[in-house]
């Protein structure tokens, strides 16, 4: 059996849970759980950063502060996504033939072609969020 480690302060919840029950049930924990736990640990950290970054963004006093905070927030979020195996889907600003199975159209009507306004998110071959698309041509400025 694993020797009990010295208790350290500031442990995560998941870790406390584990430490509380050293005699884990003998049933084979599938690999997928072990992997998920590992991925979450790193993703949790990035997500925690993102939450703090978001507060900074909200509290930004000027445009420069805001821009910095935005960059950091985007980075923490992207990192959290990567650690969970999420990949972005589609190219911002690309014009494509509209396909309801691959696009979420976020304007009224049924277009022939659309323009990607926000990239989607996929994991492996599975689409979690479809790329969001709007009309392919901008309305003429008034």
């Amino acid at each position, binding site marked *: *059996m*694993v*020797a009990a*480690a*010295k208790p350290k302060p500031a*442990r*995560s919840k998941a*870790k406390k849970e584990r430490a509380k029950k050293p005699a*884990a049930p*003998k*049933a*084979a*924990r*599938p*690999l*997928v759980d*072990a*992997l*998920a*736990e*590992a*991925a979450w*640990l*790193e993703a949790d*950290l990035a997500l925690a950063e993102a939450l703090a970054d978001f507060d900074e963004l909200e509290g930004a006093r000027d445009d420069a502060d805001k821009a*910095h905070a935005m*960059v*950091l927030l985007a*980075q923490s979020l*992207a*990192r959290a996504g*990567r*650690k*969970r*195996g*999420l990949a972005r889907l589609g190219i911002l600003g690309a014009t494509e033939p509209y396909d309801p199975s691959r696009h979420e159209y976020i304007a009224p009507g049924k277009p022939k072609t659309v323009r990607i306004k926000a990239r989607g998110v996929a*994991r*492996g*071959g*599975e689409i979690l969020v479809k790329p969001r698309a709007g009309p392919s041509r901008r309305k003429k400025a008034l």
Partner: protein
Amino acid sequence: MSDWTLCIDFGTAFSKAAAAPTGAWSGFDPQTVRPLMLSGHEQQTNPFLLDSAVFVDDARILFGRAALGQAAASSDKRRLPLRSFKTLLSVSDLDRALATNAPTSVDPHRIFQMRDLIVLYLAFLLQTVERAAKADPALARVKEIRRRYAAPAWRSGDSAGMHTAVLGIFGEAEAFRAAMGDRLLAPEGLPIDVITSALPKAAPAAKPYEMDLIFEATAAASYTSIGLEDAGSHLIVVDMGAGTTDIAAIARAGQTAFELPEARVTFKQAGDFIDGVIANVVLDSAKWARSPEQKTALWTALMRQMRDIKETVFADGRAALRHEGRTLSLSMRDIERDNDFKEFIKGFERAYAQSLAVVRDDAKARGRPEVHAIAVGGGAAAPFVRALIAAKPKGGGPRVAARPATPDWAHAPSFQGNLAPVFPQLAIAIGGALAPDDMLAARAPSIPA
């Protein structure tokens, strides 16, 4: 026959291990592969990676992450943890290299030879593998586990001789491990007086360790071709780790794969070198950091976050980081403009071209139309690595097709996306555990070749 096969990838920066049921190669089921959580008990580290590090402190020796932590906390900045000791195992005059004293920056007491410190680390690694295997519910119930280790193919050509020498060192490490048990895993390290009395007794008690050898490139080739109908005839593997970038090639005839030794090229720069480039680029652009103290503080902060910085800049083309109230930014383009980086790329491209020429010649001679290229190791995601393996060679001859660093089976929905992000770094250990026996470079002593 053993029930399971466990492969240790002893890396310059990180050690990894994975296990698979013996015979998993035929009738492959991705669910049965078990990468071991060597650092599963640590916080905020990738649980599959074990830092390859030893720190000789005043009265104790620490290993792994604890060694790095203690070295960073040490007030004497001239004291260094021993890292990159794996590269010693591939020098041609191994015995002499091992018999040298550890540098005084590593061992101020002047008591240890390099051999001692490597034996100590390997004992720690073996005990860590033991703990991880026991904690793994699938492995814990397995009676017989056959062991392998992955190593770069040795240049000298005397692989069998090197294998014997390495098994001797592992044997000593095993004897020491058996004597120390879980004390090796204590985060505060092992007292030096305990070591100096127990270590000399380990050598006479040692038996050659029972372990097969698989070349790292072969291991990479193994996972790439598993379960693939269209596994190509030729495969070039680029393994960018921390210490070295190893390029090697495999050709396949039917079920057996063999190495093309002339295609083996080691380029002595990799992740660690890029870390230095990035830190210098940021330091150069941080004009406010004038005093040596400011520069040192910035350097230390950069090195601490370097893996995240690299991951972000490789994936997004830029990264921002915070330091002492400032937001610093770095782009891939800044890195590409750096002269050291340009030299690095030139050397890397030359090494790859040299190896690729050998592989394509061999493919051509055997009338094969295509060479597959694959990147593994921590540097697999770097844009310059991806670009190089995707490059189409000029002129006629066999094509080159880049394969993804992560095989399709690692994307299986059953993994819920969790295996793919960590796969390239674990690729050697996983491939080594899956490879059939005829891909081995050398057998354990008790098993005739």
